[in-house]
């Protein structure tokens, strides 16, 4: 028999009971839509993080105090030494695979201009920061070597800080108070917005030694540097490690973070997150499949006489089996298509409404959800269909 005839029979049967067909599909619709939506969110988050991390520069290396990553047993350091400007000077002098080094001290402090006050993260750094981090002063100038060496009280402010404290007024040459100390504004940073959850625009930059003095710190929060190119990242890390360990009495009491390492860690976490979300959504698809099986069992019982008649007029067991399997697959596939459209619609709708929401409907999730819906229909349809196919035509015709 022509498979299109089976399809027609399936459609006729479903159209004869539209509300029931729709309610049965609803389980699959919800399951598929949630797979699509949750995977879209997971994938979107991955894309977002990847883009953010790419933005900080491929060759960037960050040296932070303390051993945060351990491999194997990881011996305990006998004491964590601070990372200091002396370390930076040593690296500057001896490391050959690095392109620029910048010291960073981070602290929070209230910044005041006239009667306006804002709590801001203060970054104490040096003249190399612009190059290493690829962030530049747009108006005025950034901190210079002289500013650092002379411990000048000068500040470069971010866009948000400027807007909040100065409004439309020109801040260049004005004096702001950071904590209790007065600073002269010498520059305004270019606008970079939020990267890695950090609002670059909401910062104030001051010379590193000035920062150490006013915040009473002798160590550094971190040292930023760059490998000279992508191929030397690993060798550059080795070089830093050797120099630093020599200076820290043979202890590896620091960690070198590379963008690649961050990227791969984040990718692993987010991929797992995506699979978990997809897996949870798949369970609801499975529940939808059980709903289909339930309704198909009812349907077989209701149509016992029809099955008997079809057998009497020439339907084989195979014909009846196919009729009911195709009916349940039709249910799940139509449910799957509606679910995909609905899920993608909600995902893109959310993206349109909230552009920052990272959402990305991927082809593989659509293909997976559709295939899964198809097999759910086939799998959960086969048992009721076999029951139908095995009915004895004589008993079936007499069924009341």
């Amino acid at each position, binding site marked *: *028999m*022509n498979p299109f*005839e089976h399809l027609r*029979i399936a459609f*006729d*049967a479903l159209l*004869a009971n539209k509300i029931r067909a729709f309610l049965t599909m609803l389980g699959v619709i919800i399951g598929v839509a949630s797979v699509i939506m949750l995977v879209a969110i997971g994938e979107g988050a991955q894309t977002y993080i990847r883009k953010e991390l790419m933005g900080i520069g491929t060759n960037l290396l960050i040296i932070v105090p303390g051993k945060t990553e351990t491999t194997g047993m990881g011996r305990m350091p006998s004491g964590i030494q601070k990372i200091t400007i002396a370390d930076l000077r040593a690296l500057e002098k001896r490391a050959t695979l690095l392109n620029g080094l910048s010291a960073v001290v981070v602290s929070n402090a209230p910044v005041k201009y006239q009667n306006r006050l804002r709590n801001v993260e203060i970054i104490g750094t040096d003249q190399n920061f612009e190059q290493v981090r690829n962030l530049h002063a747009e108006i005025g100038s950034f901190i210079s070597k002289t500013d650092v060496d002379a411990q000048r009280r000068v500040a470069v402010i971010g866009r948000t800080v400027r807007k909040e404290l100065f409004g439309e007024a020109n801040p260049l040459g004005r004096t702001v108070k950071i904590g209790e100390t007065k600073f002269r504004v010498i520059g305004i940073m270019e606008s970079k917005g939020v990267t890695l959850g950090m609002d670059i625009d909401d910062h104030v930059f001051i010379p590193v030694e000035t920062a150490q003095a006013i915040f009473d710190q002798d160590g550094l929060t971190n040292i930023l540097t760059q490998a000279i190119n992508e191929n030397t990242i690993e060798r550059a890390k080795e070089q830093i490690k050797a120099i630093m360990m020599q200076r820290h009495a043979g202890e590896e009491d620091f960690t070198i973070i590379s963008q690649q390492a961050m990227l791969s860690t984040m990718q692993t976490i987010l991929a797992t997150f995506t699979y978990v979300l997809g897996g949870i959504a798949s369970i609801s698809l499975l529940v939808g499949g059980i709903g289909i099986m339930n309704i198909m069992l009812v349907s077989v019982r209701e149509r016992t*006489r*029809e099955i*008997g*008649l*079809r*057998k*009497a*007029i*020439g*339907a*084989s*067991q*195979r*014909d009846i089996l196919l009729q009911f399997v195709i009916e349940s697959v039709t249910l799940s596939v139509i449910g799957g298509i509606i679910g995909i459209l609905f899920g993608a619609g909600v995902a893109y709708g959310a993206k349109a409404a909230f552009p920052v929401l990272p959402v990305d409907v991927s082809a593989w999730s659509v293909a997976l959800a559709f295939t899964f819906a198809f097999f759910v229909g086939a799998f959960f349809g086969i048992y009721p269909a076999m029951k139908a196919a095995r009915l004895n*035509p*004589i008993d079936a*015709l007499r069924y009341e």
Partner: protein
Amino acid sequence: MSGAPLIQLNDVTKVYVTGAIRYEVLKGISIEVRRGEYIALIGASGSGKSTLLNILGCLDVPTSGHYHLEGEEISAKSDTELAHIRNRFFGFVFQSFNLLGRYTVAENVALPMVYHGLGRRERLDKAKALLARVGLGEFTGHYPSELSGGMQQRVAIARALANNPAVLFADEPTGNLDSKTGMEIISLFEQLNAEGTTLVVVTHDARVAQHARRVLTLADGRMLTDKQNSIAELTGA
């Protein structure tokens, strides 16, 4: 009657086993059905006449014995082969019409042709012609529920004729009808037999038995009598 038998049963038995109990429904039946015959199967309830009809119509298989259809043994055929035989060789009419409510009258009549592999257009054209033949040419687009019982049974007869069957089997075709509409069905059977259709009818209805050319009486799973109605009896009825 002359010519080779269309159907030949040799010593056919049918035993149903329910738990520990054995029901011997048919205890060795041997009959021949020839082309163009009009046979009535009569007997008390439980005599085995419906079971015999089901075996003749390949809806059921004998426990033992031989069944030859046009000389070919079919006892060992598979389900698919039997479905094929039912589709091509036989038509069935039931006491309770068994029309599908979601299809129109014409679509119901066309149903056996679906399993014969005919295209939709061809099926519906043939269905309309068959409905005209049973006097329902104007009702092709109606749904079964819109028709009277007698009309529904005529639709069922048209459906049974869909694939030009060699034999039309009917199980109590007048059982659910009043005597007037029952008579219409009997006349229709007469007409179909006159046009060459072979009929085997299980019935309690004495009028059907009177109109048949040959009457087989079953009792307790055995053939009691097998007699030809004389022309005189027929005209006298």
